[in-house]
């Protein structure tokens, strides 16, 4: 039986992006005021795991790190077909950078081992670093393929993957256990079903803290983060109308200059 871990993240609802505020001290985005939703690319990671489960026998663990409300997305994973959920939740995990996040997730995956595949979305919609998947792989000593758009062969221990690369793609053979980060082209996630939600009643979501993982506090959260955000700025986009006058030639010359100054032409 395949043992699959899917890492999922609860992100601030992009529809409420205008309400996002930057914490001036920690330079992080406090999440609790904004509804948390499923990171869009993680839906494709979950769907990949479910498709494998339908094809072969598999046990899927959905894993997330976040505040207690993040448990909602794990409940959703269970409704979609995951077998168990693990929420890594502890005030000590707060403020983690990508390394401390990967460190914590990897520690949890070690407790779930043996694992065949770890699926992650290619990136989160709030951070967009694409680092957590590769960092988990490095910490676990697994090979990693990022930006996977197709699983060409999933028989046995050597899988053949098609992954986005520059402006094209590359085919990569990878030996399990491995970490795979996925793009939206990999599949079309299925919708939640009422019967799936009911089946999730009998499935468990475990809550683990740093004690459960046996992690020293200086290795996690803000304290365990080797990187920090030096500055965070709210980008404002504005539009203005400028009327161009003169003869046709003058108008064209003026427009060309505007475009040229803007670096477009």
């Amino acid at each position, binding site marked *: 039986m395949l043992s699959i871990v899917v890492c999922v993240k609860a992100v601030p609802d992009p529809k409420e992006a205008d309400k996002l505020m930057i914490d001036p001290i920690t330079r992080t985005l406090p999440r609790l005021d904004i509804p948390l939703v499923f990171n869009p690319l993680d839906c494709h990671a979950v769907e990949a795991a479910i498709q494998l489960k339908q094809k072969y026998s598999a046990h899927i663990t959905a894993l997330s790190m976040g505040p207690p409300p993040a448990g*909602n997305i794990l*409940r*959703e994973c269970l*409704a979609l077909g995951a077998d168990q959920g693990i929420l890594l939740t502890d005030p000590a995990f707060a403020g983690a950078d990508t390394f401390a996040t990967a460190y914590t997730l990897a520690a949890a995956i070690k407790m779930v081992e043996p694992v065949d595949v770890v699926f992650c979305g290619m990136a989160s919609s709030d951070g967009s670093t694409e680092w957590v998947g590769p960092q988990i792989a490095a910490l676990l000593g697994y090979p990693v393929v990022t930006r996977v758009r197709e699983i060409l062969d999933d028989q046995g221990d050597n899988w053949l993957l098609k992954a986005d690369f520059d402006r094209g793609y590359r085919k990569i053979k990878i030996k399990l256990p491995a970490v795979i980060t996925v793009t939206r082209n990999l599949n079309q996630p299925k*919708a*939640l*079903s*009422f*019967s799936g*939600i*009911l089946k*999730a*009643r009998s499935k468990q979501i475990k809550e683990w803290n740093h004690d459960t993982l046996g992690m020293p506090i200086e290795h996690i959260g803000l304290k365990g983060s080797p990187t920090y955000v030096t500055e965070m700025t709210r980008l404002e986009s504005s539009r203005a109308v400028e009327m161009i006058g003169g003869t046709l030639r003058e108008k064209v010359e003026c427009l060309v200059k505007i475009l040229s100054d803007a670096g477009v032409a």
Partner: protein
Amino acid sequence: MIDFTFTEEQELFRKAAREFAETRIALHVPNMEKTDRGWDEVVKELSEAEMFAVTIPEEYGGLGIGYVGRLIALEEIARISVATAMMYQVFGLGIEAFIKSGSEEQKQQYLPKFATGERLPTVAVTEPSGGSDPKGCQTSYTKANGAYILNGRKCFITNSHTADVQVVLAMDCNNPDSFTTFIIEKGMEGFKPTHEEHKVGMRGCNTGEIELKDVVVPAQNIIGGEGKGLKVAMTVIGDVGRGGMVGCALGVQQACLDAAVKFASERVLYGKPISNLQSIQFKIAEMKIDLEAGRLLGYRAAALQDKGERASNEFAVAKYFTTEAAQKAAKMAVDIHGGYGCMDEFPVTRYLRDSFVLGPSAGTSDIMKVIISRWALS
């Protein structure tokens, strides 16, 4: 202690229903509006999404989610297409007749197929002489050779042409005070759907007439017992019918509020979005107040239903309030849109037309007041 919050599971039901409505139903709306048809496609979508299984107990192939779950699903579907929600709610009415009044054999025979949408039932009570006075029912039956022979005509029947099974209320020819409900199957000799209605709103929702001419019905097709027809019909209409209309109305209210907020935030007048104008803010506030109050009334009644209690009076209050509020919300949403509110490409015109169909369905507002006053005076 009263807990007014939805459970985590109910929130997931809402998410599932919302995604379903936005991704699977919304794409059918333009065709439904244009052709006043398209019901086969949306009923297929509803079946595939397990919507008909929501109230059916698990032992009969359903999901047993209950009536709060049904109201959530209806509200979310109606927010996108009240025409679809209306068909869904009336199929639910037919299903409820079997759940509440069907014999064990009838439940075993019909409910598993209803759960998958393979077959679907509707309820036929209203006649040209009216729907709110079921005792004025002219469709009648006589007994002959152990069977029953039905004659009559029913009108304004939602799903008249699409339902596979009709639960028909008829009067005993020999005793005008006795009424019985019969299961009429599509294809029975003498039974046929006839005229198709074209309503001001809810386009694409099948509504029409059915005709019964010497239809021979076996005794095992009586539902709820001979002479118990009024109880069967009134039980499902009172709880599930009115409850369904509350779901439809809440969906329209939410859709109107969403459209009004969007337009008011984007439409600039005097150099600022019109949402800065107090006259617009007050309209939006009224819509929001009505929606919040309507939800409290509707979900409270549905919660009573889930506890196994009758909630027809509570649903009469909720039905009156929400359907009136939906009409008010649609009018205000159109007003906020100004001239654009008269143009077909803005959905508020549809909401306004749809809102007018909410009132008469499952009893007019005046009939609701009759029921509510009777409740208060009793």
